[in-house]
């Protein structure tokens, strides 16, 4: 039976991979996908805490359900913003979307 630390290491690795991608990717949709990976890592940590520390209360799993709901909402709004941007500027490159850059 793998212990809590195994799951936390897995979650930290996923979070790190997702964060790296979110920083270095230039395509806005790829950035959104990397944010999804980060959220998956956080979910694994949350469920692991729920399983090993409070196995009869399940509040960690409940938080994960809310994280999944908010992540789905975030992807829907994010993708519609990206599509609206693409319609106006014909690009999804984050280095060319710099109107608000100081």
């Amino acid at each position, binding site marked *: *039976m*793998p212990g*809590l*630390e*195994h*799951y*936390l*290491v*897995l*979650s*930290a*690795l996923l*979070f*790190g*991979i997702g*964060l*790296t*991608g979110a*920083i*270095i*990717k*230039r*395509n806005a*949709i*790829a950035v*959104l*996908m990397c944010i*999804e*990976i980060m959220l*998956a890592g956080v*979910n*694994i940590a949350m*469920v*692991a805490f729920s*399983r090993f*520390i*409070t*196995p*009869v209360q*399940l509040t960690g*799993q*409940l938080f*994960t*359900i*809310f994280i*999944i*709901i908010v*992540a*789905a*909402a975030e*992807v*829907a*709004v994010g*993708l*519609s913003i990206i*599509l*609206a941007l693409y319609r106006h500027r014909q690009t*999804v490159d*984050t*280095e060319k979307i710099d109107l608000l850059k100081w």
Partner: protein
Amino acid sequence: MGMQIAFWILSVLVVVAATGVIWQNNLFRAALCLILCFVAAAGVFVTLSADFLAVTQLIINVGAVAILLIMSIMLTRNITNGSPANNLGLPALAATGILAAAIIIASFATDWLISPSSPIEPTTSTLADLLFNSEGFVFLIQLAAILVLTTVIGAIVLLKGEE
């Protein structure tokens, strides 16, 4: 023992698929890697005896979010460019490596209060009790419904276009 083998296979699959998402230059293949990552994460939930969450993950993330991502990749695809990296590669890798190492060291250094009791199986009725009891999280589930409704209206308004 079987649990251990399943955990190792699934976790290697999750990490390899997640690396594939940032490694692949072709965005469509990156999206397929993301789907693989989500499916393997659902498997990790099963090894944690979170059955309801595994199915939720499959339905929402694999079924809805990934399809949405693939649709918008197809709508905005730029075949010549793909998905290049910017010139922050090494600093980003160093910073996130330090962050992940810090999390890992902290998780090994902390003395967790592991509970000896075995987990609830199946989890569905307990989760439903928590979600819909008046002492539970019923207010938050109502807020989540409002959030999703707002999201749908916002997405329609953003994409409606000119009259």
